[in-house]
């Protein structure tokens, strides 16, 4: 079998599509339609490549697969180095899956500057897939940071009334966080003499340096994920972004933060991770409880879901820094499931917004009468967000809480209250929008979901259910890599413990 560079291909295919779109001239409806089709087919082809990769992926292998290595900046040893393991595999698939969803979702709602919108989205996909595949820290940073540009434009050009404020806030917040990571990456590079992530993983740096580097990475990933108290950009960005932008933001971009913790913080700085675990747990639990309470009083649907995202990401950090196999698996599962569910919830809000042009909870009510299909789909995603057993949301929250309980009963218990609060705000949302008296005659006249919306929402609903019933589909793919990750972490802890007691042992002998 001839190895072909499937990861590079998957990364650059959307970029090619974007370049092609930029050459399509004309402003008319005809040109816009062509552009939409080009974008859709490009993203579908990327999805096919992603599915192919998942199929060819060796589930028993814990290390990196499909590795590509080309010289890039040989004078400092930075290389075009790509590869995926069980941790990144499914994020790539998620990104490839959500891009066509976003493109279909903006089929009719984006009417101005369709060229730029589709091109920006495809470039965003390139950068995000690149982020997940990169095995070189500089390359990772380039992709990671580069994704700010298209998202900035998407929020700023096609966003709501406060889009300019939201886009600035998004860009500057994330930029500020990630420049610290840049310095940390440089320090790591100079310390170890390599930028290759597999090599950096093999051999952790000294304890004191770990602390600083860990904090620098935290600055970046905590903003991206986001963790409280640096989450405040997220509600603004979500509310102002167009539907597709919100879907991609919640579905993929937030996950880069969690992925970063798994790729860098936990395995490269095990001692620092252990040292700062109480901090992360406190912030996570704070995020879960505080943002859930905030979500409870929101009147804007998008804002409510945005705050719920922060709360759900709190579970992710709980799981990751419990540093147990269950916790980390749960965190990955939670991220994938949240990518689907919150993405779908934003789509659901988008469906209503397209019809009534408001996101106010109070403007709706009793729409179950005229939109039964919508009510059913919305219910599945709502229950997934509540983490009802049988939906994918349950598996992730359960496992991350399990991981948290293994470490600390207190934090586990506090985290578990988030599940209850989550049920509270989601059920309130659902009841006020879907059930209840019909308060707005306009809302009572809305059409039910059309075929285009169904094509997007039904597969996502099925995925939520399938993953909830057969979590093994995900688990057995990620298990070897997660076990390797956790064993690396424990070896790192163990190593330092041994260094500390080593003299005594030798004396005893």
């Amino acid at each position, binding site marked *: 079998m001839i190895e072909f560079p499937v990861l590079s291909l998957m990364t650059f295919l959307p970029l090619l599509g974007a370049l092609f779109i930029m050459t399509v001239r004309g402003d008319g409806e005809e040109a816009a339609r062509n552009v939409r089709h080009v974008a859709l087919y490009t993203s579908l082809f990327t999805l096919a490549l992603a599915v192919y990769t998942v199929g060819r992926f060796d589930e028993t292998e814990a290390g990196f697969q499909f590795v590509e290595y080309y010289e890039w900046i040989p004078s400092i040893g930075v290389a075009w180095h790509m590869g995926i393991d069980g941790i990144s595999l499914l994020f790539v698939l998620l990104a490839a899956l959500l891009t066509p969803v976003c493109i279909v979702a903006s089929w009719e709602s984006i009417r101005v500057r369709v060229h730029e919108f589709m091109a920006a989205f495809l470039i965003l996909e390139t950068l995000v897939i690149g982020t997940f595949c990169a095995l070189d820290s*500089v390359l990772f940073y380039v992709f990671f940071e580069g994704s700010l540009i298209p998202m900035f434009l998407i929020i700023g050009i096609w966003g709501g009334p406060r889009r300019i404020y939201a886009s600035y806030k998004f860009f500057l917040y994330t930029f500020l966080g990630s420049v610290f990571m840049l310095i940390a990456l440089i320090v790591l590079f100079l310390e170890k003499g390599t930028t290759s992530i597999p090599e950096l993983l093999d051999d952790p740096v000294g304890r004191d340096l770990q602390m600083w580097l860990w904090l620098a990475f935290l600055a970046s990933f905590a903003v991206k994920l986001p963790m409280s108290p640096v989450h405040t950009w997220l509600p603004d960005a979500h509310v102002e972004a167009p539907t597709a932008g919100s879907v991609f933001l919640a579905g993929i971009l937030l996950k880069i933060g969690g992925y970063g913790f798994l790729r860098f913080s936990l395995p490269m700085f095990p001692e620092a991770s252990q040292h700062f675990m109480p901090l992360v747990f406190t912030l996570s639990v704070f995020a879960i409880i505080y943002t859930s309470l905030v979500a409870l009083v929101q009147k804007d649907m998008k804002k409510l879901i945005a705050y719920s995202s922060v709360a759900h990401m709190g579970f992710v950090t709980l799981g990751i820094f419990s540093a147990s196999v269950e916790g980390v698996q749960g965190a990955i599962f939670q991220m994938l499931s949240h990518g689907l569910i919150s993405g779908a919830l934003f789509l659901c809000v988008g469906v209503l917004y397209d019809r009534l042009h408001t996101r106010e909870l109070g403007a709706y009510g009793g729409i179950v009468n005229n939109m039964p299909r919508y009510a059913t789909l919305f219910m599945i995603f709502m229950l997934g967000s509540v983490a009802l057993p049988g939906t994918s949301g349950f598996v992730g929250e359960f496992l991350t809480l399990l991981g948290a309980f293994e470490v600390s009963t207190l934090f586990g218990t506090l985290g578990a209250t988030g599940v209850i609060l989550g049920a509270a705000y989601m059920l309130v949302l659902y009841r006020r929008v879907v059930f209840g008296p019909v308060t707005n005659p306009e809302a009572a006249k809305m059409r039910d979901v059309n075929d285009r919306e169904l094509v997007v929402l039904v597969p996502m609903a099925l995925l939520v259910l399938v993953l909830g019933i057969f979590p093994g589909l995900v688990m057995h793919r990620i298990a070897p890599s997660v076990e390797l990750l956790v064993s690396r972490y424990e070896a790192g802890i163990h190593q330092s413990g041994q260094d500390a007691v080593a003299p005594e042992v030798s004396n005893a002998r």
Partner: protein
Amino acid sequence: MQGEFEFSAWVPALPEIFLALASMALLVAGAFIGNKGTRVVCYAALWSIAVTALILIGRDWGRSLVPGGMFVMDSFAGLTKLMILAGLFAVVAMSIRYLHQEQINRFEFPVLVMFAGLGMMLMVSANDMLSLYVALELQSLALYVLAAFHRDTAYSAEAGIKYFVLGAISSGMLLFGISLIYGFAGSTNFDMIAHRLEDMEAIRLPILVGLVFVLVGLAFKISAVPFHMWTPDVYQGAPTAVTTLFALVPKVAAMALLIRVLFGPFAAMAPDWGQIVTLLAVASMIVGAFAALGQENIKRLMAFSSISHMGYALIGVIVADEGGVGSVMLYLLIYMVMTAGVFAVILSMRRDNLAVESIGDLAGLARTRPFVAFAMAALLFSMAGVPPLAGFFGKFFIFVEAVDAGYYVLAVLGVLTSVVAAYYYLRIVKVMFFDESAEPFDPNKSLSGRAVLFVAALFVLTFIAWPQPVISIAYDASKALFIQ
């Protein structure tokens, strides 16, 4: 030095000799043809610059001195001169139409640009305090006149006067510093000063006093804070074609001169001057970032932007080793390309045949001129240092060198100010892409302007694909300074 004149000994200075002769010839020719021949003189100037560059490329870039030791040619000078010539070429090419539009098409313009360029080329090859001073004055005098070139407008005249008065003060300081150094070292020759400093510890302190004055003079030329006061006013007041020149070329030449002085005669005093340069770098980064936030005039904004860029480049100087200088050269190279592209856009900002300069005038450019807006956005994001654009790599290498030498605080300060600076670059992008369209600009008929913009945008966008050659060129050139 006595004896017969031997031409072959002067060959290292051949590009400068040619440029000097060509400039004088064009001056005479221009005087005869008059202003109606401006265009012809401009084209002749372009040819002269191109031929000079060819002569330069054809030469061996190994270290060589001319008789008297006042002029040194090495690969560091070679690369810098090539950058200077490329900048001059772009400026002259882009200003032909501008001079005509602004009705200042006098033939002196290209001639003065050539004289300024000659001064700059001599600067980067200076190997003696006297040749340094003469070269610096040659370029400064030409630039004073150029700043006031649009003499009928008060702004331009003000820019010229301001630049001249402040420039004269800085020259005075420079000369005072040189005289102190001469007094204690007993020589103005760089190599001799270096020897004396190594031999005699006692003269270091008094020489440091002289060096401070020299540094003040040079800091003025690269507009490092706190000697930057002239920059915003001159950038804003001078005709845009001249501002383009100011932003592109003298900065690079002065920075190269600064490096040559610090790493040549005063290499042994690196810890001493390092403190001074640190102050300049930190102040430039901070003032450049914060002062630009409130600017409405795009030329003024670019002035502060250039101040902050010089701050970053100075970090590489502080590092004081081969890698540090290499990163400065790389930074300057990328800076030149980005700035050339941005000024190509600023030159094309005209409405009803009048130049407009406020940021608000760019409103809705993405609608009226999608490709220009796209290119400009790429250049601005690159200036902000956002990957995957070229500007990121410039900053990246600076920070790598800074961290490598242990200057963590500088690196952190650098990234923090780059976040602040990102705000004002974003603001221009916001105006172009998010705001409602203003009246469209006049069609840009300047072929050279469009070509420069295209090349610059292509460079920042595709730099990532194959960065190694450019990086190697910059790093290799800087090795010349460290051969003993």
